């Protein structure tokens, strides 16, 4: 059969019209296949610039080997010298004196700048998600102000320690730092999600313990973030945020429970402080609350992803009697989750979550190290306080 005969048998006058129809059908089918692929490609292209930039920023995070060298430093001057070769050098140059506080302030200023940069460079949909994560710094600032006011520090002194990168306006944070009483701080929080702190005032008056406010702030922070992450249809980015937040909430709750069990507190007095949501089943949390020792909490965690990291820290807990190794193991696991998200989702929120969690670990470690050296702790003692990326 010739092409002309084929065209005639299909009702076409000649081959060219048949070819044109075949080409049009192929084009339509091709478009149906290509359009979703192209949309995905456009989405990926949106992240190419920002995520590559964030990867370069992540490469500047102080490596473990350098941190080990810094731990061996015999004075703060040596720590500052080691930090001179990092991206903190420009901030350290403005430092007037070699004190751990001054180093912390340099770290905070750098952190604020780099977080602002990350939020500015990411695509619009990620900005909203990152803002949820950066609320952690609002809570950090409010806690710092509450502690500062409680300890009678001057507003200037408190302001110098703030990291104004969260959702709250920097001028609002500055206004809070001016307050002269805890009540004033809380009343100035009107119009923000943290105004709910007022509900804890009565309990604080009874206990005079700032933990009442701090635990409440964590509860507000994480429960609101969890609601934000789970109240809308989950796309890949929100799923990663949900996964990261779930680990965050579990870690906050478990740290609280471990500390409470170490102090011998009863289930009733802990329950109201726990954050709802997270990845651990409610029944498991209730079961953990009922046990009477740290060892039993560890045993109750068997079968969860937290069991192995916590189990690895138990020998150190048993030899020192301090809950800190378990807390560090849980925090390290959270960083590992952030790092894993960064690896598995290179075109999306992954690198930003990875960077924020690694940066948080870095700041915390340098701060611990500087304070440790200033207080005359031995390298071994400092090493036991340093956080590592967990399993």
């Amino acid at each position, binding site marked *: 059969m*010739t*092409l*002309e005969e084929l065209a005639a048998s299909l009702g076409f006058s*000649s*081959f*060219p019209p048949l*070819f044109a129809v075949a080409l049009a059908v192929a084009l339509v089918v091709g478009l149906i296949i290509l359009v979703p*692929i192209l949309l995905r*490609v456009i989405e*990926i*292209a949106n992240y*190419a*610039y*920002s*995520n*590559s*930039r*964030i*990867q*370069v*920023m*992540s*490469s500047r995070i102080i490596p473990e080997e350098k941190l080990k060298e810094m731990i061996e430093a015999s004075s703060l001057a040596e720590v500052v010298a080691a930090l001179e070769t990092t991206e903190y050098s420009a901030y350290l140059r403005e430092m007037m004196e070699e004190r751990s506080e001054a180093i912390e302030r340099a770290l905070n200023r750098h952190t604020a700048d780099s977080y602002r940069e990350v939020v500015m*460079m990411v695509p619009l949909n990620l900005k909203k998600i990152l803002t949820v994560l950066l609320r952690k710094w609002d809570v950090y600032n409010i806690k710092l102000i509450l502690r500062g006011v409680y300890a009678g520090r001057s507003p200037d002194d408190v302001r110098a320690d703030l990291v104004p990168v969260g959702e709250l306006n920097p001028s609002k944070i500055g206004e809070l730092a001016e307050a002269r009483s805890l009540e004033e701080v809380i009343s100035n929080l009107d119009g923000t999600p943290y105004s709910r702190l007022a509900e804890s005032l009565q309990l604080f008056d009874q206990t005079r313990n700032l933990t009442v406010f701090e635990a409440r702030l964590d509860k507000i922070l994480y429960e609101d973030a969890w609601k934000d992450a789970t109240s809308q249809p989950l796309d890949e980015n929100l799923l990663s945020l949900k996964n990261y937040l779930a680990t965050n909430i579990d870690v906050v709750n478990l740290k609280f429970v471990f500390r409470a069990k170490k102090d011998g507190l009863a289930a009733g007095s802990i329950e109201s402080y726990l954050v709802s949501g997270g990845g651990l089943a409610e029944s498991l949390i209730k079961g953990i609350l009922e046990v009477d020792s740290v060892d039993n909490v560890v045993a109750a965690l068997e079968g969860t992803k937290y069991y192995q990291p916590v189990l690895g820290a138990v020998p150190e807990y048993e030899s020192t009697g301090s809950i800190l190794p378990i807390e560090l193991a849980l925090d390290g696991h959270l960083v590992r989750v952030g790092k894993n998200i960064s690896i598995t989702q*290179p*075109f999306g929120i992954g*690198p930003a979550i990875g960077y924020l969690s690694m940066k948080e670990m870095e700041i915390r470690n340098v701060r611990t190290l500087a304070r440790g050296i200033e207080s005359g702790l031995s390298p071994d003692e400092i090493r036991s306080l340093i956080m590592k990326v967990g399993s």
Partner: protein
Amino acid sequence: MLDVSTGVALAAVGAGISMGAAAIGAGIGVGIAGAAGAGAIAEDPNKFGTALVFQALPQTQGIYGFLGAVLIMIGTGILGGFSGFESAANTMAGLTGTTPENAALIMGLAAVGGGLSVGLAGLSAIGQGITAAGSIGAVSKEPGAFGKCMVLTVMSETFAVFGLLITILILVGLKLLGA
């Protein structure tokens, strides 16, 4: 009734698809890798070399598309206009024992097939661009990963090479080239 002009038009469509589709792929691939490169350079201008190497990889599909289009145009003789095509069709008719009109149609359809092969295979540059973008980020973070990332990025190239190879085989097989 067919005439030679249908064959000429099809040959032109084939050459157009070869270059056009491959250019879309290469353009998007280079664009994605370039955006990642710009991000890396914004943080560290020393990353320019790394970015350039990875950005160059998806460009090759555009070169294959160009090569495919030139081969189609040479093979079908449309570089010499209607008379060039007619002459090639007559040669083919003589070789295959068919009419010049049928030979012209076969040449035109072969050009479309060859153009689709190298052109659509050129869309692999999009995937290559995505891998290149990821690699720029990975190498920026861990310079030691350069070689491994390069291997991963080059993988997509295989399909573009296969596409060009099939185009050449179609043209050679039908004695449009090398006859």
